[in-house]
């Protein structure tokens, strides 16, 4: 009943075909007013020779094709989506409603500040709220996603150290960190150094101590960490780095676990990025857009990207472009404003009390689901209590039945649920990283748990149900190797010559 999307069997061979397959010469959806000025052409030397091979279809064709494709997609609106680390929450409809008013949607990014005072005040309030939630001094709203936020933070580290003596070329990262962390470190021109986890799934503080020296620019950490565990020795860690003049970066992907309970700033972090599409339920749109605001402590404010929002004494707002020590800009304009408008709706709709409750429910749901699954899928790190998400392992199941985490995941699809994250973090064998978020009700959690346990049961009794799953979807298991071998990355493309 609280299961997921209508998922359908199609006998072969009925896939939808692309919009190009609906194209018929001369058919059209577009219409423009008849040209009411003298026609003008671009110079022949710059003119296009042949028309592009775009589809020629009617509006009805567009509507049926993309409506049908949408129905072949699973979203939070169709069912639970317990992807660990991705934090898939329900996206309140009010945010969509308000974000579409022309007063937000129809603003040009370069219009004079005095014509967008309402917009700027909203961004200002949002920035203040984010700083209060994270314990930071100021924040930039420019980064369009978390990875860009990481880049921003690392460049701030670089700028900070550049003004100080000594070479700082290393950034420490826990081995369980998300892939964007090491990638960002490399792109920011640092060397990434892995910090191992101890057997409780926490940063191995003793090893860390051996890695911390005056070549270290900083440490990147999520807390609760990527295993959903809180780094209890966080103060010791941040002090250790500050002692050598390094900075500590907070990857905010798990901020939703601690709102109103503790703040990165209070733990000693100097730089924080937030994923609004995780913490503040801005729709992820099938892969994006996101927004990755970055907050910093007092001493780092001057390095924040330009322009930075400024509130003048008369209560008016403007973009301050005169920031000599800034790292510069990371976005063509002001960032993903439309996403930030939705984040504002979530932050101020929930408010101080609501946000704290969000973290409480996230923790309650995660621990409840972990307990329900434990018989078949034990916690990878049972010693430290889970917070908003947990990593279970299908290793025992694999040992007993040969069925892997991926088989369980695919079977869950046939049982009507979106699977959890699997095989991440890499440090856990047969990892199943599960984050129910505050969105899911107990009834949904019970249904999900029953499905997990049924799959585990079937792994013993009828393993083909798992190995052959899914069978109820528009397509069955897809051959990723085939895709990489043939590289059909566009319609009409045959196999490339190799």
């Amino acid at each position: 009943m609280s299961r997921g999307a209508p998922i359908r069997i199609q006998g072969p061979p009925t896939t939808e075909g692309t919009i190009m397959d609906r194209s018929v010469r001369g058919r059209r959806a577009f219409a423009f007013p008849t040209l009411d000025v003298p026609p003008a052409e671009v110079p022949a030397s710059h003119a296009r020779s042949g028309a592009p091979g775009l589809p020629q279809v009617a509006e009805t064709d567009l509507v049926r094709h993309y409506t049908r494709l949408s129905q072949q997609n699973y979203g939070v609106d169709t069912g639970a989506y317990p992807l660990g680390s991705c934090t898939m929450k329900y996206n309140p409809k009010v945010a969509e409603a308000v974000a579409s008013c022309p007063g937000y949607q129809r603003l040009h990014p370069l219009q004079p500040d005095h014509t967008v005072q309402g917009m700027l005040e909203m961004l200002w309030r949002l920035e203040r709220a984010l700083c209060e939630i994270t314990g930071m001094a100021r924040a930039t709203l420019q980064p369009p996603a978390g990875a860009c936020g990481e880049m921003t933070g690392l460049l701030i580290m670089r700028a900070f150290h550049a003004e100080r003596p000594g070479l700082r070329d290393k950034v420490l990262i826990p081995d369980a960190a998300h892939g964007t962390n090491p990638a960002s470190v490399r792109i920011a021109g640092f060397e990434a150094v892995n910090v191992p986890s101890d057997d409780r799934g926490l940063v191995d503080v003793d090893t860390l101590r051996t890695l911390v020296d005056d070549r270290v620019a900083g440490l990147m950490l999520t807390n609760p960490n990527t295993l959903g565990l809180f780094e209890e020795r966080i103060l010791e860690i941040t002090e250790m780095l500050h002692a050598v003049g390094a900075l500590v970066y907070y990857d905010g992907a798990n901020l939703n676990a601690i709102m109103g309970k503790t703040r990165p700033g209070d733990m000693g972090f100097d730089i924080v990025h937030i994923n609004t599409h995780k913490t503040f339920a801005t729709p992820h749109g099938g892969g994006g857009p996101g927004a990755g605001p970055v907050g910093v402590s007092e001493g780092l404010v001057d390095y924040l990207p330009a322009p930075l929002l400024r509130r003048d004494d008369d209560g008016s707002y403007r973009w301050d472009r005169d920031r000599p020590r800034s790292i510069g800009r990371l976005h063509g304009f002001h960032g993903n404003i439309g996403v930030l408008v939705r984040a504002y709706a979530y932050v101020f709709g929930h408010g101080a009390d609501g946000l704290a409750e969000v973290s409480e429910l996230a923790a309650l749901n995660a621990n409840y689901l972990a307990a329900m699954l434990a018989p078949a899928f034990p916690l990878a790190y049972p010693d430290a209590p889970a917070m908003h998400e947990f990593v279970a392992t299908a290793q025992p199941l694999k040992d007993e039945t040969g069925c892997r985490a991926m088989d369980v995941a695919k079977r869950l699809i046939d049982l009507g649920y979106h699977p959890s994250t699997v095989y991440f973090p890499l440090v856990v064998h047969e990892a199943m990283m599960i984050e129910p978020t505050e969105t899911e009700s107990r009834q949904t959690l019970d249904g999900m748990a029953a499905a997990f346990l049924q799959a585990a049961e079937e792994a013993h009794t009828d393993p083909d149900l798992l190995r052959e799953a899914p069978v109820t979807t528009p397509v069955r298991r897809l051959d990723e190797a085939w895709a990489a071998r043939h590289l059909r990355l566009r319609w009409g493309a045959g196999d490339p010559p190799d």
Partner: protein
Amino acid sequence: MLAVIGRSSIEELFEQIPSQVRISRPLAMPDGVSEIELLADMRGLAARNVHADDAVCFAGGGAYDHFVPSVVWALAARSEFYTSYTPYQPELSQGVLQVLFEYQSMICELTGMEVSNASLYDGASALVEAVHMTLGGGRSRVLVSAGVDARAVDALRTAGRGARYEPELFDGEPEVAGDVAAVVVQHPNVFGVLEPVRERFEAAHQGGATAIEVFDPLSLGVLAPPGEVGADIAVADGQGLGNHLNYGGPSLGIIAGRLADVRKMPGRIVGETVDVEGRTGYVLTLQAREQHIRREKANSNICTNQTLMAIAATVYLGWLGPDGLAELGRQCASKAAYAASALADVPGVALAFPGQPFFKEFSLRLPKPAGEVIDAMIERGFLAGVAMPHVADDVLVVAVTERRSRAEIDAFVAAMGEVLSQ
């Protein structure tokens, strides 16, 4: 539920947080409000903005008031699309995956390039990523035409601090030595002028550098696409493709290139494949390029992209089709030409680049600072254009899209006349 987990209170779940770092007070912000109150607050803020239906928009500079047909968001806003995550489970995500495959296909058709990814953040990030594809092999210098948007160059400068290059601006012919990795040309350029991009790219190739074109996707119904003018990598901001102005974001970054370079491409790429029964399906492919596999060896850190905007762009390009794209280009070019000549006749106003060809955007020299003129024009119900303070106080860049009517243009010209005669 507490019983099941053997706890007596939710608070216990937070005990592992050391007391020294706990906050005992509520967050210093208002408590939650009802939808009624939230809408009142947010609609009130929105009402304090002058939007493009209040002031007729002649501003461009990278964000344009192109028309967004109702069908685009009626489809892109289908909740199965916009409430889904990155398609990590392809069997549950064929909808998004197929649309992205169609998006990649349309971008290739549009640009004349061989391969496109599934979107980047915006035009500036696309330029940065394109440049990063070209670094290495003893080539580390980046030559950027003075006609490239200043904000994009800023973003490049910012990224260069990490990737250890400093974009070098050139005017006219670039001098392409053996250590030059990339030559970047924007076409039409930031002043709207159509530079001799073919020649520039020839110079780049002479010097063995990669030619990167920053293009305008809405121009490609009439302008020669990157694939025709010798670009190796083509990047653009895709806002105009069915996405609203949104005060500058979310938009999408377009990047397309050669199949030979596909493994250097950043971000997600969707590929066609088959399922165990031979049905056609779509998956994320070449993931070995990406950060979640390659980690510190990845040459891009992008994860979340702008899929939803790419979906809108796909529907929009389907709405246009080849004929619509050509008609749109004709209308932009014609209306811009009409506006330019009428404005050039306003006393004190001159074209900044007389005799130079342009598409939908052109630059004026004014007898007054452009900023003042823009403010005065707002009073008259026009967003007059974009100022270029970093270039010259008296330059105004005006953009005219297919959406502008002759009546609007005439009124605009008349208002400019008034403002400048004062």
